[in-house]
């Protein structure tokens, strides 16, 4: 039964656009309205991005502060190829994801020479260069601070227009499914167990005769490619790319998502990403109605995050297990009290 749950959820998610269910408070319109579908698509994209990041952070213990660079490479790559050079979507997406992987291989091979905090700093610095370059608009390619809207002329007709938001939703769902399949395949393979070993004790992996550097580079490139794919999906859903996707804030929010949901767990990062994106969007919408600092989404999310680090170390995914002792503590007591009554 438990194994079937993800499959059931997937079927529900695929079928969701046919529902006209109205959920007041949660969404502004019925489930199949374009606004709601757009919001849900964004949540799914962030779920996938967070899980891809968790491959580095939660599963391999690589605290990269530069993941946004590869997402930006995906978003801007596909945007530039379609809008400036008029490539068809499929070719542009394929080339962009490959380019993101190559970029990750190049920069990863330098950054992974260091470890620990220095690794975090180097990745942060690389991503910052990406952000600066994108903001400076080299050769009129990236559109500078304004961002680059995706030219709809170059897209398949099924992905253009408000009435086709549902197709973007399915694209986002497909992206999340791909990331889940890839990451869970890695989890189950010997590679996944080696990565866990790498996270817990790198020296032990080296003693076993494996090369930590090569393994880390492999997972860095894989995560970079997934981030590139995520960037492509993001550009499609949002309809363009802006310098925000390259900013360090995006990487920080990915960390928040992974930790909030439960880093290193099967579904934690997906859950955290979906929830974060939802709260971010909804709180920004409700912003004016809430008093004082609660109108700022980042204040609420940052505070939630700090509380989660202290009080829910396993994240949302670990919550179920936390109630287990309580449940166990309650059960014997009812039995003994019943025994006492009968006696």
């Amino acid at each position, binding site marked *: 039964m438990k194994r079937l749950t993800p499959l059931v959820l997937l079927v529900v998610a695929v079928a969701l656009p046919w529902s006209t269910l109205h959920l007041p408070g949660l969404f502004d319109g019925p489930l199949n309205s374009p606004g709601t579908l757009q919001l849900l698509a964004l949540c799914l994209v962030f779920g996938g991005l967070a899980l891809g990041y968790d491959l580095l952070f939660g599963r391999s213990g690589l*605290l990269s502060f530069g993941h946004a660079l590869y997402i930006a490479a995906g978003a801007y790559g596909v945007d530039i190829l379609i809008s400036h050079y008029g490539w068809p979507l499929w070719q542009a997406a394929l080339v962009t994801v490959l380019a993101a992987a190559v970029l990750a291989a190049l920069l990863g091979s*330098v950054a992974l*020479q*260091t*470890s*620990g*905090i*220095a690794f*975090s*700093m*180097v990745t*942060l*610095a*690389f991503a*910052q*260069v990406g952000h*600066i*370059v994108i*903001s*400076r608009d080299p050769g009129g390619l990236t559109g500078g601070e304004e961002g680059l809207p995706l030219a709809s002329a170059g897209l398949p007709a099924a992905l253009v227009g408000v009435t086709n938001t549902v197709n973007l939703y399915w694209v986002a769902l497909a992206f999340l499914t791909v990331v889940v399949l890839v990451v869970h395949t890695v989890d189950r393979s010997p590679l996944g167990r080696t990565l866990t070993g790498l996270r817990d004790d790198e020296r032990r992996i080296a003693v076993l005769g494996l090369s930590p550097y090569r393994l880390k580079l492999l997972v860095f490139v894989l995560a970079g490619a997934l981030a590139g794919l995520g960037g492509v999906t993001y550009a499609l859903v949002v309809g363009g790319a802006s310098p925000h996707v390259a900013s*360090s*804030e995006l990487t*920080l*929010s990915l*960390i*928040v998502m992974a*930790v909030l949901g439960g880093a290193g767990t099967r579904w934690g990062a997906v859950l955290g990403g979906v929830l974060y994106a939802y709260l971010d969007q909804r709180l920004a919408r409700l912003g004016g109605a809430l008093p*004082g*600092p609660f*109108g*700022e*989404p*980042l*204040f609420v*999310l*940052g*505070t939630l*995050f*700090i509380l989660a*680090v*202290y009080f829910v*170390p396993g994240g949302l995914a670990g919550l179920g297990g936390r109630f287990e002792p309580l449940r166990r503590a309650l059960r014997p007591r009812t039995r003994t009290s019943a025994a006492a009554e009968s006696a």
Partner: protein
Amino acid sequence: MSTVVLLTLTGLGLAALYFLIASGLSLVFGLAGVLNFAHGLFLSVGAYATWSVAGSWGLLPAMLLGVAAAAATGALVELVLIRPLYTRHTEQVLVTVGLSLAGVALLQSVWGADARVFPRPAWASEVIGVAGAQVPADRFLLIGAAVLVLLGLLAFLRYTRYGLVIRAGVENRAMVSALGIDVRNAFTLVFAIGGALAGLAGILGGMYFSAISPGQGASLLIFAFIVVVIGGLGSVAGAAAAAVAVGLLQQFVNYYGTAGAGDVSVVVLLSAVLLLRPAGLAGKVATA
């Protein structure tokens, strides 16, 4: 020639700003092992505290209040948020990340997201002629403040008992604890010092850019991180040398190269230093 003088002094002014932020970061990392993302928040707290009372109190008392507020914020963050997590370094980093997000949003909700014009003493707006170059006087203010702070910090670390504890703690924290010294008090002290220096950097940065905004700390913080890593984690003198190198490189390349090339060249310098000398110019090997 006059261009070179102007660029040098402007670069040194920027270096002074980086040094003020980086020295606190470096001490905090060296001693407590905490990579403090909330350092940018201390900077903004100092700047906004000064800005909000400068009109009624006069600039100098307002600056003192700003530095004190930033120091208090630093000490409070250490006592309330960092200390309960004792040696769990990843969690400590995560908490400071959350704090930087929430804190900037809080400032934004109180004072708005837009930049505010920051007051400066009248003489700082004048220009001074140096070797044929017209140099704005605020550069000298920044450089002077940074040199004073550098000398003060080095004297504090060398000649006082607390300085001794901090230096020993950076070297080997476990041994200091084993000798019966409560090194955690030194943590609070280092956070307060780092906060005060960041607050000062926020105030001087406000004068340098003549405006402050809630996000300003975060953008300066990244270059301060680079300075810390190049200088060697835990070393004040290393941070000073690295700040000068980064500030000058950034100014000169930005002027003679295309826009943004200076920022890129700083990162190239960082990767070169890390590959050739992973421990930085001076300092211990950077491991989590």
